[in-house]
């Protein structure tokens, strides 16, 4: 479909521009934070000479523009520099910590879509009835507290008072499973280790649900309100007049047109989970990017800060591109338009 290719190309181009902008911004901000990274890295007992050598090695004595030049040149080789906190390549650190975060966010997003959208459809189809009232009340509860509050509440209830789920981590102690990609659900499956898969899933459910709850509520409420509006459209009156079944009208003729305005917002909510995940990760001692991110900021670990922020922005942009593509698939007006949408 040429229109989709065109949309994809446009979005990729704008995303690249955004990424460059973000890199410049975060590059500058990271260097404005007070404190000498070399001194922090080497500790208070290091000699002034040692600090000067490290500063030189890090190009910290060059102009900020020259520093950015070095950074970009390295970036082209897939090199984000060395973290002063872990003494390893930043890319390596990210490869270690990012999968845990992505897995969490991905499963939360799945929950949001698989629970939130059907709840919204149900609510709209039975608008004005007790089903609708119940769903609206429950989802209002969901959106009324941020993810980390749910994280604490769910942990207290389902891991402490009624210990069904584990309190922390991604695998039980002594499971002995060696990750391959770092996406544990995936790794355990491809190595055929069903026990480890169950274990990983068990650890994931509570934090993912906590992170998803407000998204589920938001998606349900959004889908409901867009769909209730759609129910007043002449094309719904038409299919009602022709006696199409209420179920079919709900699941197809009213749902799909109202999905178009809903999708964009659901996509934004999903992307926002990347940010909210930080707090949920802290609550569940989830070994994701959040612990790393906070540590490197406190240590003014320049390369690691810039690398982490860039990777998260890139994830944001990828999610947005996917959502845009989905919208154009659902909306024939975009898919079929001859001029650039």
């Amino acid at each position, binding site marked *: 479909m040429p229109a989709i290719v065109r949309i994809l190309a446009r979005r990729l181009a704008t995303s690249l521009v955004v990424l460059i902008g973000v890199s410049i911004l975060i590059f500058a901000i990271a260097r404005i934070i007070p404190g000498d990274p070399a001194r922090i890295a080497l500790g208070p007992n290091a000699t002034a000479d040692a600090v000067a050598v490290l500063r030189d090695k890090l190009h910290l004595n060059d102009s900020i523009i020259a520093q950015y030049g070095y950074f970009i040149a390295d970036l082209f080789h897939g090199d984000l520099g060395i973290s002063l906190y872990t003494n390893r390549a930043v890319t390596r650190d990210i490869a270690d910590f990012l999968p845990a975060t992505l897995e969490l966010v991905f499963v939360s997003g799945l929950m949001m879509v698989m629970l939130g959208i059907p709840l919204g459809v149900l609510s709209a189809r039975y608008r004005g009835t007790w089903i609708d009232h119940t769903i609206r009340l429950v989802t209002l509860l969901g959106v009324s507290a941020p993810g980390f509050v749910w994280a604490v509440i769910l942990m207290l209830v389902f891991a402490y008072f009624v210990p069904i789920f584990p309190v922390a981590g991604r695998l039980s102690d002594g499971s002995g499973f060696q990750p391959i990609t770092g996406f544990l659900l995936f790794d355990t499956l491809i190595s055929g280790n069903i026990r480890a898969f169950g274990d990983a899933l068990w650890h994931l459910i509570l934090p993912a649900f906590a992170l998803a709850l407000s998204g589920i509520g938001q998606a349900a409420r959004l889908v409901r309100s867009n769909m209730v509006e759609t129910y007043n459209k*002449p094309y719904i009156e038409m299919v009602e007049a022709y006696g199409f079944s209420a179920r079919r009208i709900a699941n197809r003729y009213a749902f799909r047109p109202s999905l178009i305005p809903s999708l964009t917002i659901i996509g934004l909510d999903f992307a926002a989970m990347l940010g909210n995940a930080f707090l949920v990760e802290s609550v569940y001692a989830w070994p994701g990017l959040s612990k790393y991110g906070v540590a490197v900021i406190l240590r003014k670990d320049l390369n690691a800060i810039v690398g982490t922020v860039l990777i998260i922005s890139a994830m944001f942009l990828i999610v947005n591109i996917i959502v845009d593509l989905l919208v154009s698939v659902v909306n024939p007006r975009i898919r079929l338009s001859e001029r650039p949408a």
Partner: protein
Amino acid sequence: MTAPTLKIENLKLGFKLWSGMIEVLHGISLHIGKGERVALVGESGSGKSVTARIVLGMLQEMSSARISGGLTFEGIDLDKLKPRDRHHLRGTRMSMIFQDPTSSLNPVYPIFTQFREVLARANPAISDAEARMKAITALADVSINEPERVLDSYAFQLSGGMNQRVMIAMALANNPSLLLADEPGTALDVTVQAQTLKLMSDLVEQHGTSVLFISHNLGVVREFADRVYVIYKGRIVEQGLTKQLFSNPQHPYTRALLAAVPRITGGGIPDIAEDTAGFHDPLIAHPGASEKELLS
């Protein structure tokens, strides 16, 4: 004589709202003989659309609607039918055409998807190929030259006139005995509206379909209808053969309606002075055209 296609007796409708009851229909009676084309004429808000929706059984599904009176369809008392059987009439034995064809077609599905589902109302087991063939024939009947292309298009890709033809084709595809046309094509421009009305008129004549033609455009009514009911604020105020009514309007409201100059822009007969004394006069039926006489 055979039973009329539709008989409405003393139909009353009210809505129970937060603010209390509002009465919309105050006991209207009308009927449509087999193959007859009957117009229901009145200004906006007089209760024309709700009447059509009650005939289809749609308003009955609304919890706020209070409905009483008799509805008979081809001799069958609709209120005695099981809800399932009654619902089954929709889209099969009765169908409807709306004001704005383009917004009456779903924007995210191609025409064929909707057409197929309309055909499946009468024949749930219909195959894709069969549905396509039937749809193509139906579209050809409404003078669409490239039915294949139209079927695979979305409503927004087609002109209003084209969409109206599609609506007419869908409405008649299952060969219903009653067509409810609620101000059909009022949203279209005048020439297109006239063309598509002519088309609809020819087709219902061919099929012998009975039509309830709702309109506020008297010019169109005069051309299209065999008989006319004039409705004012939920009451039928005058009824008669089209010829009688136009040559010799009796009720003050009908006279005002006829005297009002129709707007050129697809509208009809707006701007009648509010509540002139005689508008609430009782029903006037032309000789030989009362319910009693016609149904005896």
